[in-house]
């Protein structure tokens, strides 16, 4: 079981949050799982961490459709932040709109971080969803 220092779940749907939490249990050991209802509050927390030198999360589960600040706007801001370590970002969506997939591909090109695109429903969290090394290969 992989040990992860901190995980963000950014999603406005409580059921999905419940599901991710449940699936994480057998997959990772983590004492710091934070949940945010939209991109804005997640971003604020992240900025806070950077300011106070608290380590940023190694893994983020990110919904696309959210109020106030959606997944794409969050990503836009996120890639501009000064974060040294590679972060695994799992985009979780029920969208089958090809334009969403294309947007993801564009972000993956310009970002240093590991971006995964995962269509709902999820049944299990794979080790690769938590590890940058596996994805790099």
């Amino acid at each position, binding site marked *: 079981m992989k040990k992860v220092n901190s995980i963000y779940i950014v999603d406005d749907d409580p059921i999905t949050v419940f599901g991710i939490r449940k699936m994480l249990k057998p997959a990772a050991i983590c004492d710091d799982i934070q949940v945010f209802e939209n991109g804005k509050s997640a971003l604020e927390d992240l900025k806070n961490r950077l300011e106070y030198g608290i380590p940023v999360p190694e893994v983020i589960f990110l919904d696309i459709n959210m109020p106030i600040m959606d997944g794409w706007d969050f990503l836009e801001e996120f890639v501009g932040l000064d974060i040294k370590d590679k972060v695994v970002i799992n985009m979780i969506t029920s*969208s089958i709109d090809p334009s969403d997939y294309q947007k993801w591909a564009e972000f993956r090109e310009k970002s240093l971080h590991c971006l995964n695109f995962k269509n709902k429903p999820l049944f299990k969290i794979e080790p690769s969803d938590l590890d940058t090394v596996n994805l790099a290969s």
Partner: protein
Amino acid sequence: MKAIETVPQYYLLKQLPKATALVNTNQVLVGASDSWLDIFDQNPHKNIGSDIFALYSSHQDVVPKTLQKFLAKREPGTLRHKRENGGSEQWFESTFTPWFDEKENILGTIIQVDDITKQVENELELEKINNTLKTKSEVAKVGCWEYDIESEELNWCDETRKIHQVPQSYTPNVADAIAFYKKGYSRNKISMLFHKALKDGTPFSKRLIIVTKENEERWVRAAGKPITENGKVVKLFGTFQDIHEQVMAEMKSEESRQLLTTLIDNIPLNIFVKDKESRKILVNKAECEYVGLRPEDIIGKTDFDLYDKEVARISRDEDLEVMRTQKPMLGKETINIKKDGHTTHFLTSKIPLLDLEGKVNGLIGIGMDITHLKKKEDQLRNLINVTAVQNKKLINFAHIVSHNLRSHTANFSMLLEFLIKEEDETEKERILGMLSQASDNLLFTLEDLNQVVAINTNVNLEKKSLKISDVVNKVQQDLSIFLEKNHVQINDEIPNNLTVSSVPAYLESIILNLMTNAVKYRSPERRPLITLNAKKQGKNVHFSITDNGLGIDLDKHGGKIFGMYKTFHDRKDARGLGLYITKNQIEAMGGGVTVHSEVDKGTTFNVYFNEES
């Protein structure tokens, strides 16, 4: 031979101005005037005693037997003879008269000679003229006739007989002649004309039909004019001409012309013929109707006289090209603009017109009015555009539907998977609770989607003319508690009588939504102020609602503000549906909506109602 002596009184004879000679019974010349001797080329002094036969034999056309008759038998008579003199001919007529003494004893013959050259020439000329006339009359089939009133005799010439197909021996009377005309118009007409000419001397010339002896119908031209003597009509003289072939040819060409005219006048195409200078030299009915002038007012005009300058220039260039290359221009789409600006679309063809030598003489133009087709095409294009927009909206909506439904169904499958594997009863209860929540969410979503579908499918909802102020008042009443609770101040500047064409339920929903939003997103620091306005703007009505609320960063969110399930403020009751529905309702009625906003200052929504469709 004692008779041969010069008688002194014969000297008188010698001087007679008229050529005269005396011949004795032995046909010997006994005396002659110098003028006579000159005719026979004789010396005036030495010829007495010459044989008269010898003298005459120097002339031509003298028949000795006839001469013998006059001289030997001393019968009176005349004789024509001719002298050739260096190429020219001289004609003479000798008159022989018996010569008696005072006791009526025959002495011989007196011969007098006249120079009749002039007369003979005239006769020949006359004969020539007569011959020419006869030939002419035969060739031109012109006969003549003459009617003598007193004797009631009618004379036909040979040609007139030939035209009637009667033998040359045939002599008609007036009744016979009239009976040859075809019963009916022709016969009535000729009787009338003939009698009128007789009565008051009116000349006539008329094309009529006769039925010949061989029972053939032929066209003739019968003409007559009176010949008067002392102011009284004594004769009618006229011509009679066979013009059957000519009339037939005329009728045939008239028929072809008629056919052609009928054809080009009734064909639903504009047809014109232009000369080398692009002047119109022939136009059909459709072209005249299009131009709006009579043919005589169009003939000779160019496009520059009739149409817009630029249009005329293009047309002239086409004409020149067609005439230069001798290649027709076929089915080209052209636009014609009249001087008054009236525009017509044509499918135009221009075909070079060649003369008999194959040289370009002008062109034939054919134009088909396709304005109505063009209009249809434009309508169709508009429809395609509308459909394309509609289609885009539908695809967008399909994505929304699939996304929203998928997110719920995905939750179902995920939760069910958990439930199957879960053994802990408390956890199972929790999962079941979640499932029930997911089911509720799905129902909500379906309701939302139903609303949107209803708006977009009921495109033909009946619009009514509604007073905006009435609807605003109703909404204000419905929201009164909500407005009071939030201390909302409303500044209503809508003109009292302004009406808008709208679906009643939609107008209410739009105003309700926008007003609710204006209050919902109020600034906590200010008392909410809503300004309502409306005015007529050309064919549209422009309605605006301005608040002093939180505002929204349009640079960031402008593209999504009317999107489904898009919310921008941290409010629990914001579902991201209101503006999406509002926009759909406005667009379903053919209108539009825009937004202006400044963060922490306020927002204005502008709604444009389409008053036309």
